[in-house]
């Protein structure tokens, strides 16, 4: 191969009102390499990718494609050049088949539907990710949906594949399959641009990496020669903690207990909960892993009281049945809740931080005889902002204008400040940068040590392994057993996430681990 690079982005600058998303960014990608683009949230990765894919126009700088300068005004042009992109959130129509979905996006490039189906089948098998072109998207797992998006890119004469956080929705096994596919692709000369937060994946998979911080390139590295820690340090700079110490806890008395919780699914895409048994003890963090859409939302709503199931007697807080209690009454029994959606559920986008502090803290002396005590509310907002290092221009800034990580720190701070007895969290650090992640984890661990029962539902396995005292998985509305993370091999958790809750059929080494698990699991249940 000549020394012409596949792609060279030179001096790319893009300014949005109030922030420079990209400042003189240089990015080179060779033929047939897997290149990682790293950076915290808000570092400018998405903006850079959007410019490469023709969704956003750069203010300055040039893009050199296979040696010649190009101007990419819209995604169709990018696709014409051989650039394919798989977004973090898939854009697929649930009610259409694989073929129809692909035909819709490709437009004229799709060709006849019948030949398209053949091409989809052939291409998907060639790269080791089999797909049935006639199946409807609604019947596909998340991993399969991602394949649809990748195959869609492969159908064109693909030279560069951009993947935005591709592994965040996959089980560990599916991640390995994806990596095989990507390696096969690069052998054929296709380049891959891989965006991820999971640094151990980057060190495992990628040939080179470019690191962005606050819109500027702050370093290049060969991931194989680095550790996750050293890369993280390049991403966040020198003055932010990137790790914290987590000690396991055994917990005390059971606070929340769920016995035989089952629900009916109402809509076509709802998941019914099936005979869920789960206990959370005071001073203990229980983690639930699982791919999105396997009943997590339903379980959370059943626990928070947002969804009340009549005639059900399955959930107890401190020995009292709460099934028929409203969310408010459950809050008054000590429940606090950090939902998955920060804007629009955890916080009201159009209200300022003071009002958002009041949103769930109204029982903490902020209301007197039905009247708001404004000074107390402002005090609380300031306290949360200060204590949890929320980066904001002030307490009267609207929630919508905070970055995801900062808003999450605020929401977590607000809930923790109420000193709950039972904290329910969904994806506590999803899309949150490393510095904020550490801060949030510290706050959760401290709360646990003060005796709070904590239940965390997350897709981030690293996080769950790090902070859970007991860990299990949810799949299709059922939950697995819960074991101490140290004795729960990743492979087994992966099986659980895929719905295989049966006794382990692994080779001997794993079996011994499993037996050990049972013992420790049993003691921790007592």
């Amino acid at each position: 191969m000549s020394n012409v690079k596949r792609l060279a982005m030179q001096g790319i600058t893009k300014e949005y009102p109030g922030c420079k998303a990209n400042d003189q960014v240089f990015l080179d990608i060779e033929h047939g390499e897997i290149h990682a683009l790293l950076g915290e949230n808000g570092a400018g990765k998405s903006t850079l990718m959007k410019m490469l894919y023709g969704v956003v126009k750069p203010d300055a700088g040039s893009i050199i494609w296979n040696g010649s300068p190009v101007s990419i005004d819209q995604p169709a042009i990018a696709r014409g050049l051989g650039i394919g992109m798989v977004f973090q959130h898939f854009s697929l129509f649930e009610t259409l088949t694989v073929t129809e979905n692909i035909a819709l996006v490709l437009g004229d490039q799709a060709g006849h539907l019948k030949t398209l189906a053949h091409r989809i089948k052939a291409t998907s098998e060639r790269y080791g990710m089999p797909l049935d072109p006639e199946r409807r998207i609604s019947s596909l797992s998340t991993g399969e949906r991602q394949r649809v998006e990748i195959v869609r890119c492969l159908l064109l004469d693909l030279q560069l594949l951009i993947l935005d956080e591709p592994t965040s929705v996959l089980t560990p096994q599916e991640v390995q399959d994806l990596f095989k596919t990507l390696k096969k692709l690069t052998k054929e000369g296709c380049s891959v641009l891989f965006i991820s937060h999971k640094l151990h994946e980057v060190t495992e998979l990628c040939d080179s990496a470019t690191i962005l911080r606050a819109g500027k390139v702050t370093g290049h590295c060969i991931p194989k020669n680095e550790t996750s820690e050293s890369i993280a340090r390049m991403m966040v700079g020198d003055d932010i903690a990137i790790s914290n110490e987590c000690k396991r806890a055994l917990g005390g008395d059971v606070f929340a207990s769920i016995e035989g919780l089952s629900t009916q699914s109402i809509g076509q895409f709802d998941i019914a909960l099936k005979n869920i048994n789960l206990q959370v003890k005071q001073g203990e963090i229980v983690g639930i892993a699982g791919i999105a859409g396997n009943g997590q939302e339903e379980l959370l709503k059943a626990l928070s009281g947002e969804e009340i199931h009549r005639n059900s007697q399955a959930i107890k807080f401190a020995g009292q049945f709460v099934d028929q209690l409203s969310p408010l009454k459950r809050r008054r029994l000590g429940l606090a809740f950090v939902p998955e959606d920060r804007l629009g559920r955890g916080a009201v986008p159009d209200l300022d931080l003071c009002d958002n502090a009041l949103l769930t803290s109204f029982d903490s002396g902020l209301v007197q005889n039905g009247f708001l005590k404004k000074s107390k509310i402002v005090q609380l907002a300031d306290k949360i902002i200060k204590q949890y290092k929320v980066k904001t221009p002030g307490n009267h800034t609207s929630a919508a204008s905070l970055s995801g990580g900062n808003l999450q720190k605020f929401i977590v701070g607000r809930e923790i400040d109420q000193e709950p007895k039972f904290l329910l969290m969904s994806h506590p650090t999803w899309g949150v940068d490393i510095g904020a992640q550490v801060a949030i984890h510290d706050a959760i661990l401290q709360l646990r040590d003060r005796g709070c029962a904590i239940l965390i539902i997350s897709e981030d396995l690293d996080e769950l392994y790090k902070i859970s005292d007991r860990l299990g998985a949810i799949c299709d509305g059922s939950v697995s057993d819960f074991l101490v993370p140290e004795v729960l091999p990743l492979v087994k958790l992966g099986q659980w996430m895929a719905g295989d809750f049966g006794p382990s059929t692994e080779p001997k080494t794993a079996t011994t681990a499993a037996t050990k698990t049972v013992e420790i699991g049993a003691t921790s249940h007592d």
Partner: protein
Amino acid sequence: MIKLTPRAQASAKWGYLSPVLAVFLTLIAATVLFWGLGKDPQLALYTFFISPIENWYGITELLVVAIPILLCAYGLALCYRASIWNIGAEGQLLLGAVVATTMALKFVDSDSLWAMPLVLLAGMVGGMLCSGISAFLNLRLNCNETLVTIMMNYIALNTLLWAVYGPLKDPSGYNFPESALFGDSSLLPILFEGTRLHFGLLLVILALVIVWVFMSKTFLGFQIKVLGLDKPAARMAGFKEKKLAAMVFLVSGALAGLAGAVIVTGSTGQLIPAISPGYGYSAIIVAFLGRLHPVGITLAGLLIALIFMGGEMSQMVLQLPRAITGILQGLILFFLLSCDVLIRYRIVFTVKLPGFTAAAKH
């Protein structure tokens, strides 16, 4: 192709200025309209907007018209803050008037001090009855609140007509569709000698203060705001959604019903079919023009009242049709909504390229 793309940040300044701009654009449109109708625009504008309030009596008349509009609009603003699209103030007003009249006719020959409060209370009950039915249909049976409140307007109007032609008709009224004249004990006192401005003005000021304090200082007001902005957040925080919704329905019904009672006890002194030229509908425009804020609403209510009076004045002086009032109110709402769209979005002109539809998906 013209596309609307969202702005990164909506301007707060223009949030306040857009009603002013809308009024200004309406004046321009009105000028063109008068000119098109063959009237001297300068004279027409003068007749419409200045002549009704040239003197003290005119100003008091303006307030008389504004009283029922404002009472309705304060209540509607509460509903709209909660994202409950109650279009039923007109019906609530009419039914309030009917029930208030029923009560007032019991006191025709009495000079009890209880008469006035009871009549006003009856009006509020009538309004709450009307909005309560809408609330039940909306909250219990999941019917769309916009539709049921509109339909309740027709039911209320026909109830009023049935009442004045039937049970409430004055037996000694020569068969006119009117109730008997109320006794003095159930007529609102006049505030200034020689004018028709009545005690209702004080009720408006009271409502203004209460609604303002309620919205900005109380936890219930806060919960209503959250409910309107973000239902999932309200649910997450454990607010009682249905109770809050029922409450704003009932409060707005009570205020609109009070407006009806104030009209019959303050302005007409009896129940007649034409007690409201659409005050309850105009209140919708007033609520939005006033940015759902009690003070803004008060200013907007005075403006809409002026258009009502200007419309009558121009019928007399310029022989313009009665529809002119409705046209101007409609224009204001139209310009306001247009300005609001441009606060949140900007217009982008794009050229359609082949393959663009596929690209637009991302």
